[in-house]
């Protein structure tokens, strides 16, 4: 090509490299907003600046957290059984490998999973036939279990106690 000068081609060459990096910087700028969402989501607390502007946002000191230490079966064939809670997850179901083997005809082999995260325990249904209920609500995803809230698995009801 003779109708385009050497200078133009060189300018286009460097222009293209510039364009590549402009794209990358625009992408990174777009992602910055995402990181901010992440930060807010993790702490969930208003920033110091927001508290200064709206004093009502200042959170009252959190109530003293009572940690769950035992799992108690309150209803069902195993009524009265207690299981001490350690740091490892607990598998609930009829299968022999479960941590708490439920002798309950309405429970599935691997029915639900109780696992610690931070200072709380969460319950997650493992695709059981009859479902897991946390305070009369059927579980659709992992939810935190508060102390004394009944969790129903088949005919068995368990509770966390301090």
């Amino acid at each position, binding site marked *: 090509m003779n109708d385009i000068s050497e200078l133009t*081609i060189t300018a286009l060459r*460097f222009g293209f*490299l510039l364009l590549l990096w402009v794209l990358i910087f*625009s992408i990174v700028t777009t992602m910055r907003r995402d990181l901010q969402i992440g930060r807010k989501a993790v702490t969930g607390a208003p920033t110091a600046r927001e508290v200064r502007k709206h004093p009502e946002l200042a959170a009252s000191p959190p109530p003293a957290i009572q940690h769950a230490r035992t799992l108690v079966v309150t209803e069902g064939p195993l009524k009265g059984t207690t299981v001490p809670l350690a740091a*490892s997850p607990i598998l609930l179901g009829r299968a022999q490998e479960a941590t708490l083997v439920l002798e309950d005809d309405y429970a599935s082999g*691997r029915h639900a999973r109780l696992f610690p995260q931070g200072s709380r325990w969460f319950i997650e249904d493992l695709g059981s036939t009859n479902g897991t209920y946390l305070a009369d609500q059927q579980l659709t*995803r*992992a939810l935190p279990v508060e102390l004394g809230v009944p969790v129903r698995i088949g005919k068995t009801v368990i509770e966390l106690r301090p």
Partner: protein
Amino acid sequence: MIQTDTSPKPRRNVELVLIVLALAVGVGASALVSINSDVGLDRDFWFQSSLLAVAAFAFHMVLRLRAKYADPVILPIVVALNGLGLALIHRMDGPGDDTGNNQLRWTLIAMAVSIAVIWFLKDHRILRRFTYISLAVSAFLLLLPLIPGISAGEILGARVWIRVGPMTFQPGEIAKITLAIFFAGYLSSNRDLILLAGRKIGPMQFPRFKDLGPMITAWLVSIGVLVFQRDLGSSILFFGLFIVMIYVATSRISWVVIGLLLILGGGFIASQIFSHVAFRIDSWINAFTPEVFGRSPGGSGQIVEGLFGMADGGLVGTGLGQGRPDLVPFANSDMIVALIGEELGLIGLFAVVMLYLLLFTRGFRAALGTRDAFGKLLACGLSFAIALQCFVVIGGVTRLIPLTGLTTPFLAAGGSSLLANWIIVGLLLMISNTARGPVDTTPMVGKPPASSSTPGTRKPATGQTPSAPTEAVKQQ
């Protein structure tokens, strides 16, 4: 687990702006290639550019309709990479070659399939029902090239292609998606068994064989078939995928240690048994020895010419269409990274690596954000597969590791790889849609919740039909 109180934003307009920029990269590369060749901005250029633009905007519109909250960055990155790849492949086309147009055809097919996946699948969690079917499909796909009749025979020392009409296809590329689906589905429901049940020997806890059986089967199928097909790159990819997904599911570092030891041991054994592996390693270590350079099968000429090309490119490159990448064999597929290094220089090559890195982080962001274990594992596995492919290819071309025959995602010429990677992008977009969208309270196993008016929860964004589950839940 932590509820976000910030309202989800679709951010599709940002995506539109970024797509325009990405198309500018792709079309700009094509334009530079055309200007520097003798033809100039001819009809072919306008035709290809407008087709790519139409496809990208169509994909964008589908996301607006079907996956409103999907990640706004993934699609622009992929469009930029694919556009750049098209330009580079077109640039390598000699007179009468049709690789560029073929790649464009495959790009359009791949984008159409990816759109169809987003449109009809709606929710990635449906794939969990196909856990064991995926394993069977993976085994079938991997065995296809060994069946006489449809097998395309041995091409370049590997039996990985099948013949579909006039085209050849590499079913192993699709198998990496189905294997990732199987690993994600199996590990998300059996993670606890692998973690908790089992004997403890010393400081390590070994899972019971029963719990690992299907995983080992999957691993044996992929590795075994690949030994027979003599495809080193894919077996590294499958094995890496296997190790990473089991590590992510169980968070035991021992899996990674075992995996690396097995790769080193397996590599050593393979180099003793298979001549092609031995050649690869020899041409990696002794690349600059004249007899290795000039050896006819398994010489290091390809790597060394690629390195010379990149050295010639230097910091800013020779400019698109002005280097001599024709000296490097397979400059438009296996060695496309060397072509980028030569014509766009270190600055351009790093931009491409950066795009891959950003794509990978977005995949992991989707994995972190989504609430179901299956989606997390699937997003991790799929984005890791892309990252590992980049590492193996770029590491091979730059002589960090032995060169193996894997494709550079979205850049290299090759229809099956393009198709598989666009499907991966479709799945990642779908997972990021659930990750970034309003909290979806529909059950994982397809069962409608007991009471639909749960206070404090919002309706799912994706219009999931509240129909009865198609698959009954097994009573164990």
